[in-house]
């Protein structure tokens, strides 16, 4: 047995102790015990400062209290992310939202992640017209871009439809109201046109003062005949649109437009499905996320100017779409990937374990009603409100900062002292990890937007129970931070292991570790993650992929012949012990 006495007990020193123990074990030392701290002194201090017997006894006591250094089985293996990302933290949702999400998940037998993410998408769309001032000249819109990968047949369409139902209802009401207004406007336009024709005839016919009077009346009428501001077809959301159509929708709906889809058509459109050369068109979507001024000049069409675009995206697609987005170089370099919440809901899927008979209970009506009430209230509180127009000092129309038109005002939230403090703490913690060579350097594009995303989320959750006039509460920020961590873990996994098959294989290997298995054969991989499908070549390729990703390494005794004789054994691999499962299955 080796006793180890290290002077300091900070993290680096403890890691060094782990390394020492591991090396000793590698060489056959069976037990390594670490002595506790000597009251902040080293052995020489004890000798110099205590009397002989006192110092001697102190060291003997330390030997008695020495504890074995835990097996550092991870040593020598690359770091691996948890292959099973965390479950959505339902406790980080306001009660009425969480109750609806739980009930819907039970009804459709889906992981709560789907309903929860759909709910966040709907809430953000309802609140999208508002913005939040994060301090330091940093203003964020409340929109979120959410992309959820989930297996086929996971009932994601049904969940999305139910959660987005209030938006559909509000949209239909707005369209009905617009239709009524349009009929009235059309009638009025016809009356004005008739009067205009009469007046034009009079002006042409009359002379002198009569003509001047008719001309003045006609001028007044023409001023009255300015284009109607009645929306022709108000919209809150769409399921499918090209990038160009999205710009048109944002222009026609200045309070914002949400994209809700359970198919990947929007992604295909963004990546150039309708482009002759297949070129992605991501500019407008990227600019809309930050609420940047959009101006589009197209040949043969009047320019489209959108001073404060608002766009939210909630896409539930097949898991391979997640890989497509993450793997698209232009989407990564242009910052689209960094703007998306990337969730892999496949490991959480209930498919195969769903309750069929008796059928699960339906979501009670009162929960649907409560949910709709929340969405309506948020939308109403974030609507654009007229304000007293300010007179410009030097004439001419005055346009405020960030293209805000004076005369109308969209709500701008601000953070409370405590919530701002929590957000700053997050920023301070993340910043050094983005440096060159730091662990999150490769993920700068996403991490740089992380605190903004958390601020957006906090503001939206605040609006569930609060109002835009109140400062974003500390509770809402704490919820948002927790959900933000869930976003982060998923996004890291989506970016580092974009291949769904490799992700599944990692999760399968983690299960083996949990069962105490530390080594697998190529055949195990064929039967396990591949389900026995395909030829052994496929398993060999997957093994190679897992080895290069650090999840497996060739077993040391792989070269030994089969002790039972006969055919040589297939390749065997050790499993990276850092592959651990989260508490999702606990």
């Amino acid at each position: 047995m080796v006793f180890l006495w290290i002077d300091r007990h900070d993290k680096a020193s403890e890691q060094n102790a782990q390394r020492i123990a591991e090396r000793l074990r590698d060489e056959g030392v069976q037990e390594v015990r670490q002595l506790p701290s000597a009251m902040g002194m080293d052995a020489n201090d004890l000798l110099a400062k205590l009397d002989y017997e006192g110092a001697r006894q102190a060291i003997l006591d330390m030997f008695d209290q020495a504890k074995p250094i835990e097996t550092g089985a991870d040593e020598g293996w690359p770091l691996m992310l948890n292959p099973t990302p965390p479950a959505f933290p339902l406790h980080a949702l306001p009660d009425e939202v969480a109750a609806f999400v739980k009930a819907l998940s039970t009804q459709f037998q889906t992981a709560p992640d789907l309903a929860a993410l759909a709910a966040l998408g709907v809430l953000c769309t309802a609140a999208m017209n508002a913005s939040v001032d994060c301090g330091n000249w940093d203003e964020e819109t409340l929109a979120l871009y959410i992309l959820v990968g989930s297996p086929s047949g996971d009932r994601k369409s049904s969940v999305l439809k139910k959660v987005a139902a209030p938006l559909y209802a509000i949209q239909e009401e707005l369209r009905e109201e617009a239709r009524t207004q349009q009929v009235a406007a059309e009638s009025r336009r016809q009356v004005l046109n008739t009067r205009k024709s009469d007046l034009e005839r009079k002006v042409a016919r009359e002379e002198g003062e009569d003509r001047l009077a008719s001309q003045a009346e006609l001028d007044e009428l023409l001023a009255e005949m300015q284009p109607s501001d009645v929306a022709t077809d108000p919209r809150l959301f769409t399921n499918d649109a090209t990038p160009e159509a999205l710009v048109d929708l944002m222009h026609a709906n200045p309070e914002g437009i949400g994209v809700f889809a359970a198919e990947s058509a929007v992604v295909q459109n963004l990546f150039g499905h309708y482009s002759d050369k297949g070129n992605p068109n991501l500019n407008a979507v990227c600019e809309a996320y930050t609420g940047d001024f959009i101006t589009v000049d197209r040949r043969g069409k009047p320019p489209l100017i959108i001073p404060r675009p608002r766009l939210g995206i909630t896409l539930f697609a097949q898991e391979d779409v997640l890989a497509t987005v993450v793997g698209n170089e232009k989407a990564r370099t242009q910052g689209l990937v960094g703007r998306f919440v990337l969730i892999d809901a496949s490991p959480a899927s209930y498919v195969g374990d769903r309750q069929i008979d008796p059928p699960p209970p339906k979501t009670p009506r009162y929960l649907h009603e409560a949910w709709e009430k929340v969405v309506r209230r948020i939308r109403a509180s974030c609507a654009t409100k007229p304000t007293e127009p300010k007179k410009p000092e030097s004439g001419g129309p005055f346009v405020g900062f960030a293209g805000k038109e004076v005369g109308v005002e969209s709500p701008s939230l601000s953070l409370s002292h405590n919530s701002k403090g929590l957000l700053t703490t997050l920023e301070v913690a993340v910043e050094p990890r983005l440096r060159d060579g730091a662990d999150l350097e490769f993920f700068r594009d996403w991490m740089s937007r992380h605190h903004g995303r958390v601020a957006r989320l906090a503001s939206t959750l605040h609006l569930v129970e609060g109002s835009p006039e109140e400062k974003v509460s500390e509770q809402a920020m704490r919820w948002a931070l927790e959900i933000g961590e869930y976003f982060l873990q998923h996004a890291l996994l989506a970016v580092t292991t974009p291949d769904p098959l490799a992700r599944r294989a990692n999760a399968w290997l983690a299960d083996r570790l949990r069962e105490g298995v530390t080594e697998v054969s190529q055949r195990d991989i064929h039967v396990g993650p591949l389900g026995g499908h395909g030829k052994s070549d496929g398993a060999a390729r997957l093994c190679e992929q897992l080895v290069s990703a650090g999840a497996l390494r060739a077993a040391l005794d792989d070269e030994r012949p089969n002790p039972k004789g006969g055919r040589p054994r297939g390749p065997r691999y050790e499993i990276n012990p850092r592959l651990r499962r989260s508490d999702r299955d606990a």
Partner: protein
Amino acid sequence: MTTTTRDARNGRPSITPAAPYLLERGFPEWAILEVGWRVEPLGPRYRRYGLPAEAADALVWLIPSRHPNGRVWFERMRFIDPADLERFGGGKYRQPARDQVGTGLQLYDPYLLLSTEKWEPRDSILLIESEANTVAVHTLLPEDAVIGLPGQSTLTQKMARELAAIPWSSCG
């Protein structure tokens, strides 16, 4: 305090007039003698440690490192005066370059526990950071086996192999 004691192994003065420094650190004379520590001006040895000529006057703590065969392999040195440490930079401990002594960092084993001639089954061994702590523990618990990591460095795989080679009496 000054003494004229000589090193039992090589007959050289082992405690110089500067030895009070070691005594003040709590080491008894017998313990200092046993391991052959000395405190003296660096002198012309400065080249050996890659130091400039100005370092010759610096008072240093010389720590012999013994080969398992019992002979002094090389001497590590430590500046006594913090001002010297600041003046010449580098780490607190220095040892001759590998090409001069044919070896890099070694376990500090003044009691020759790694010597195959002295091998005896042991229940346990204490591994501790730095030479000073090694001797301090031996002073307080002379019955226990202790080996030091040089300075505050980590244990290399080669050192681990040397430690593991000690015959263990039971479950080692």
